[in-house]
């Protein structure tokens, strides 16, 4: 266990060394946020509606901002390293050493992203505070606590999803296009661009059968108090099941993949 803790520390050190890099990505996130801001302003002005898709102007804008930040908090990047390990034989090292690859990736992911995650949550807290002050949005403390819980769940769910995705490199030789498409699709389906209610009731229902909404949509709905406590607990339970279920799928696929692994090079 201590070796994984140590790796986590190494990841954190690496992340701290690249803190400027992080600041730049957060700054870059400002542009899509501004774009959406202008867009929704125009839509609300044009339609002169009080509510669109069940959300008021201020609710919609705060959702869009918070969702963009949440998507930043959940960013990954290890999938390319994993594909490279699988393709070029870097996995050999892990197979012959008493170190689980899953454990290694998870520790390094937590280590490198913990800093980003906490920092982004802090930025979100500021945004939220502004929204509460400016638009007199009401947020309950209990909802904030439950949101943090669901955000941590989203953090692990995101890891499982992208870890599973990376395992396709056992069978596919070019993964770049797949990774990028899944990243965009996942961003949309998780509610990272617009609330899922925009897609209409029936599609929203279908989407609730997929794990993606537990990444961004569900945590934000928890935060803004749209859901009842009962719904929140049910959602947390489902999120937890998705994490566990994906872990099972991962271990099955890993076993099959590493059986067909060619151990190229050297």
């Amino acid at each position, binding site marked *: 266990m201590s070796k994984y803790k140590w790796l986590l520390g190494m990841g954190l050190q690496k992340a701290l060394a690249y803190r400027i890099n992080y600041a730049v990505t957060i700054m870059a996130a400002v542009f899509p946020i501004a774009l959406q801001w202008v867009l929704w302003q125009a839509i609300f002005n044009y339609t002169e509606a009080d509510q669109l898709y069940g959300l008021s102007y201020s609710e919609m804008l705060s959702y869009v901002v918070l969702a963009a930040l949440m998507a930043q908090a959940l960013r990954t990047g290890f999938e390319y390293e994993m594909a490279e390990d699988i393709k070029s034989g870097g996995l050999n090292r892990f197979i012959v050493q008493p170190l689980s690859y899953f454990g290694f990736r998870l520790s390094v992911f937590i280590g490198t992203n913990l800093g980003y995650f906490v920092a982004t949550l802090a930025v979100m807290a500021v945004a939220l505070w502004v929204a509460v002050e400016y638009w007199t949005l009401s947020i309950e403390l209990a909802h904030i606590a439950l949101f943090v819980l669901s955000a941590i769940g989203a953090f692990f769910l995101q890891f499982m999803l992208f870890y599973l995705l990376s395992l396709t490199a056992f069978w596919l030789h070019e993964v770049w296009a797949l990774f990028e498409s899944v990243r965009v699709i996942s961003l949309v389906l998780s509610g990272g661009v617009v609330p899922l209610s925009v897609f209409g009731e029936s599609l929203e229902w279908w989407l609730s059968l997929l794990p993606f909404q537990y990444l961004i949509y569900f945590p934000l709905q928890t935060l803004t108090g749209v859901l009842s406590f009962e719904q929140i607990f049910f959602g947390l339970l489902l999120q937890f099941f998705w994490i566990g279920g994906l872990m099972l799928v991962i271990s099955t696929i890993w076993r099959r993949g590493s059986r067909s692994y060619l151990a190229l090079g*050297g």
Partner: protein
Amino acid sequence: MNVIEVEGLSKTFKFYRKPQGLSASLKNLWRRQIEYKEAVKDVSFSIEQGQVVAFLGSNGAGKTTTMKMLSGILHPTQGKIKVLGHTPSEREERFKKRFSILMGQKHQLWPDLPAIDSFTLCQRIYEIPTSLYKQRLARLSEVLSVSHLLDIQVRRLSLGERMKMELIAALLHGPELLFLDEPTIGLDFLSQRAVMRFLQQLVKEDNLTILLTSHNMADISALCERVLVIQNGQLIFDDGIASLQNSLGGLRRIHIESETPLHSDLLRRYGKVINNDIHRAELEVADGAANQVLQQLLNEIMIKDIRVSAPPLEDSLERLYSHQGQVA
């Protein structure tokens, strides 16, 4: 006690063929021709504790594939393997802590970090107690004379220095068994010698079992007592190194240096002339005849220097390979 036991080991790879050109690429989209390559065929052998065994064969003969199966990287298609009492493909942690594999072309050190950081990672991964770790690191880095290089970024080290660091990383957890795949590849002869001398010392002091592949015959004859030769995936030779040399039918080489010119016509009377550049010649004779030939040569030629040796290992191997080629 047998450290390695292999019985009826086979590995078949599946691959696709793609002829040159775009049309072939398009055809491949619809139907790909699957072919199979038997990289290792029905190989059986066992290695005792403390033995140093060379694993020889030409490129693509199946050496590395076999080593990967022995270390659990690849699953065998068929056959049984027991290494240190474990089945490698089960990849148990207890098993992994007892051996090391070092591939000359694959590195485990992180190039951007100084070696010492990678060593600390090794300590964590293998859960080596700190005092033992420090003691081993001090000893290994001293013997390989790299103590002063531990805190330099690995990418800034020379190839030889990096190889020594890789060796240290492979040995820190005190493995009982060492797989070495081309450990001296790309090294200059001074570094080669340093590495080989170090391995010799290690075998003597720690009773380490080593399975080594190399194309460098000097490595092999310096270190190994036994030779396994694999050709086209099949084990074609398994015996002591002396008997590999004798497999040429007991020949001896006589190296002659002389003040006066040496004539091939004269030399041919005694044996086969391997080469002759007037003042220096090499003669191949039957083992039993060497003594007699020596005496006669001393009588007939003004000899400056004369010496008898076994024919180089390469010759035995070449004959072994080509002989096998004819059979197959």
